[in-house]
């Protein structure tokens, strides 16, 4: 069944089209790899999908509901992760997770310690984030993703700052998410591909 459909979508910057209009049709358990040169608008497209940037599109549907005008039904089941990690240096790993989900109106559905173990942060649960390395901070930012029940993941360069084990980790989390019937759009340069995407979309300039 089709979970997310986007038809003839494009974004503008300073009255100029960033990329040629694109179509996305994503089913449950499928993921799309978003490729393209630097500055072509991969991040902008992801931001536009969650309503952080103006989007021109013919139609956009989530689980059969039109979400082009009102993003509400989409946002309730989507988790977007951008370049900025949205974590607070002073708070501990678990506090960061709790507030990230709490402020998004969600509750942690599984044991936070088990989640930390899942992303390889065992032993750091109560450490302030400022004491962690860049790669570990990235893992902290991944926590709200797997702790929430979001159906659709929109990930912007999730492999940045991660070592080989971290990249394998993201792929493992993604596989678990997909087998549960989730979907994902991942923007990446394609240097860290381990599993084959269900769809590939390359943005090209108009």
């Amino acid at each position, binding site marked *: 069944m089709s979970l997310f459909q986007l038809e003839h979508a494009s974004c503008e910057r300073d009255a100029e089209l960033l990329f040629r209009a694109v179509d996305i049709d994503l089913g449950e358990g499928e993921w799309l790899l978003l490729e393209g040169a630097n500055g072509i608008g991969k991040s902008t497209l992801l931001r536009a999908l969650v309503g952080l940037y103006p989007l021109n599109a013919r139609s956009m549907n989530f689980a059969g509901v039109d979400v082009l005008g009102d993003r509400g039904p989409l946002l309730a089941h989507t988790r977007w992760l951008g370049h900025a990690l949205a*974590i607070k240096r002073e708070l501990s790993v678990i506090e960061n997770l709790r507030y990230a989900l709490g402020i998004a109106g969600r509750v942690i559905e599984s044991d936070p310690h088990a989640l930390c173990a899942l992303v390889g942060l065992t032993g750091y649960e109560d450490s302030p984030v400022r004491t962690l390395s860049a790669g570990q901070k990235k893992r902290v930012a991944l926590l709200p993703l797997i702790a929430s029940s979001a159906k659709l993941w929109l990930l912007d360069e999730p492999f940045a700052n991660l070592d080989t084990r971290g990249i394998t980790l993201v792929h493992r989390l993604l596989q678990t998410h997909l087998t549960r019937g989730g979907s994902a759009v991942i923007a990446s340069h394609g240097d860290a591909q381990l599993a084959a995407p269900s769809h590939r979309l390359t943005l090209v300039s108009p």
Partner: protein
Amino acid sequence: MSDFSATSSLLFRDLTLAWHRRSDVLQPLAFAVLVVLLFAITLGGDRARLSAMAAPIIWVTVLLANFLSFDQFFREDAADGTLDQWLSSAVHMSALCFGKALAHWLVYGLSLLLATPVLAMLLSLDVSLLPVLLVSIAMGTFGATQIGLVASALTARLRRGGILLALIVLPLFLPLLIFGSGAVDAVQAGLSARSALLLLAAQTTLLTTLAPLAAAASLRIGSDQPP
């Protein structure tokens, strides 16, 4: 219901963060005490003159100190991507803005309110005026925080928004200042402070109702500029 739990979650987060940054919280407070001390020293030995001018001086100082804290409102959340996470969640941004203002007042407004008796003592304000001063400062800082909420939302993503923030906020403080220090003046002149306090309460209520909506709209408009 999820809006309510999200707002209280934000409230707890901001209070926790403020606790971790206690020294930052004390800065506006230290500023207020220093400014009042400068006035006390400059106006010098004439206690009668000092106590006659005490209420307006305290009011202006408290509002300026409150203004200094507005920089903390959204700048960091905008820079580290937290703000974008809020905007891309299903929670109503205006509910979060209300929580943000409430947390800000509980940290900065309340601490300034608690410091007010000390400021009053430094300027030898008549003790009988202290209750009306405290009531007016309590309402005034709450209203001022709402003004700061909107202005900070407008300037959150600007690299150097400090001066612009001052230009937006300071003129809007004027009505609060007039009725706030007017209430104390009335009691000082032997009249009732009732009408001035009621007008101050009306302003604060209006600001508290409208500011979260305006702030939410401002943050959304600015969201096409990534951090």
